């Protein structure tokens, strides 16, 4: 199976001199859903920053969609980012317009016509199960609705790779379940690659994903536990 992210011999040190990653290796195949768990400060967000070329490590090689993001020209990097959907933990608020208007705004800025942007915005909101709230403003949504809206924004331009930085943080278990169910549907329908980071993933066994743990600057490959009847039943 083709690889969309390949990280080799990654080493990174924070400004205080503390080693974050030591000879880290990682692969994500096309169409695969992976989840990286780790305690706060383990370097989950940092790793995503390296993958999108926003931050630079001290050593290593990172290939994304067959491009070396550490040596790529800035213009090519922006082109690459158009193939990536990103959900970051700390994002500036979006409050003034409706959900539909925000998604359409992003698509219009990415060169779609008014009509195309509107149609695609509604399709995206339907995909993330927010179509009935398309005319509402983001502050009117509950916590999981707000995350789904952000997920919709990340998905709206049809990326091939979806990077999600701790999207489950602070959600109630029902909210976690709802967001993961939507994500599973997105994964099935769009066949895109997903890399999700979170602190803990006790639910991992119930979803078709590859689980990793980030500890001591290295990734440990944890195979998902087999799905059992008790996992499926509520």
């Amino acid at each position, binding site marked *: 199976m083709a690889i969309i992210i390949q990280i080799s011999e990654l080493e990174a040190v924070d400004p205080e001199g503390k080693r974050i990653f030591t000879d880290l290796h990682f692969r994500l195949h096309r169409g695969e859903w992976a989840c990286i768990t780790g305690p*706060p*400060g383990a370097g989950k*967000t*940092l790793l*995503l*920053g390296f993958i*999108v070329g*926003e*931050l630079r490590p001290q050593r290593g090689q990172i290939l994304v969609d067959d491009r070396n993001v550490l040596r790529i020209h800035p*213009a090519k990097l*922006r*082109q*690459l*980012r*158009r193939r*990536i959907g*990103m959900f*970051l*933990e*700390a*994002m*500036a*608020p*979006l*409050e*003034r317009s409706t959900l539909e208007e*925000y998604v359409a*705004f*992003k698509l*219009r*800025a*990415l*060169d779609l016509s008014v009509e195309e942007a509107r149609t695609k915005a509604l399709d995206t909101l339907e995909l993330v199960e927010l179509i009935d709230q398309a005319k509402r403003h983001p502050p009117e949504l509950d916590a999981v609705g707000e995350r789904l809206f952000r997920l919709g*924004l*990340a998905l709206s*331009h049809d990326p091939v790779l979806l990077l999600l*930085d*701790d999207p489950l943080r602070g959600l109630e278990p029902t909210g976690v379940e709802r967001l993961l169910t939507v994500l599973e549907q997105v994964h099935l329908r769009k066949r895109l690659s997903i890399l999700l980071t979170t602190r803990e993933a006790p639910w991992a066994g119930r979803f078709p994903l590859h689980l990793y743990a980030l500890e001591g600057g290295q990734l440990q490959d944890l195979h998902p536990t087999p799905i059992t009847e008790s996992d499926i039943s509520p």
Partner: protein
Amino acid sequence: MTKELFIFKELLRSLPARTWVLALVIVVAVAIFLGVVALVSFLLQPVAPGMGARLIAVPRDDLSQSDLSSLHERLLSDPEVVHVRFVFSSTATNRSTDEQQRTPSRFEIVLRSDAELASVSERLRGWGAFRQVGPPGPDSLETWRDWLQNPETRWFALAGFLLLLAMTLLVIYSGLIASQRNFAGELELLELSGVSPQTLRIPFVLLGALYGLAGALLVGYLLDGLRALLEFSSLWLPEPWERDVIDQLGVRGFLFGLALSGVAGILGWLSAQKYPSPFKRSRISSSSADVTEG
């Protein structure tokens, strides 16, 4: 460019009422600055060599049309006079043609040399046909001109000018930063989607230029309004040659405003460069969360 204009339109839509009030303050501040700059440049401008000096002569009210014609001929025959133009005041334009023809306003006289200004003025006053004779502009402007051209005081003027310039640029910059903060969510969204930094900066360049242009238009309209007010309120400021000064100030203010638009556009570009990367902000937030959770 269509994409940039679309983002600019959305940027303007995103501004809340508070920021619109700030924008109004910015435009007024720019207009005041432009008015001051126009006045200073007017006062500092020397008379162009070879162009001669100008005199304004207001004839007495009781002169007939034939008296005015003969006065015109007499002025033209003066060896120091190059050109004479008879001007009707615009307050008389609503009157009938006969009345307008009989209403004296002023002669604009161009002299061969500014060295002869005082002697010609004295000579014309001696004719007894004029109410007022003097150079264009009120006496107060001459006082300011002397003050500005005095080597001992011009440093104060320069310091004041630089202070005013700095304050104007600071106000514009604050407005740009405020609008950028209002639009932070949208900027972040587009940045994450691979929209180029240049595309994200151009709306702020346009916004900065708009502040300068709006200030230029405002100073033009304000000075035009002031001129109209003076023309209809001759009791307040009876010197009819104020009009020429105000016309010149309006044009200069507008031209300086165009130049300031360019500078404000550059400020827009620079202000957008200071926008923090959403990824770095995300890391900071994550780190502070670590500290909280111990």
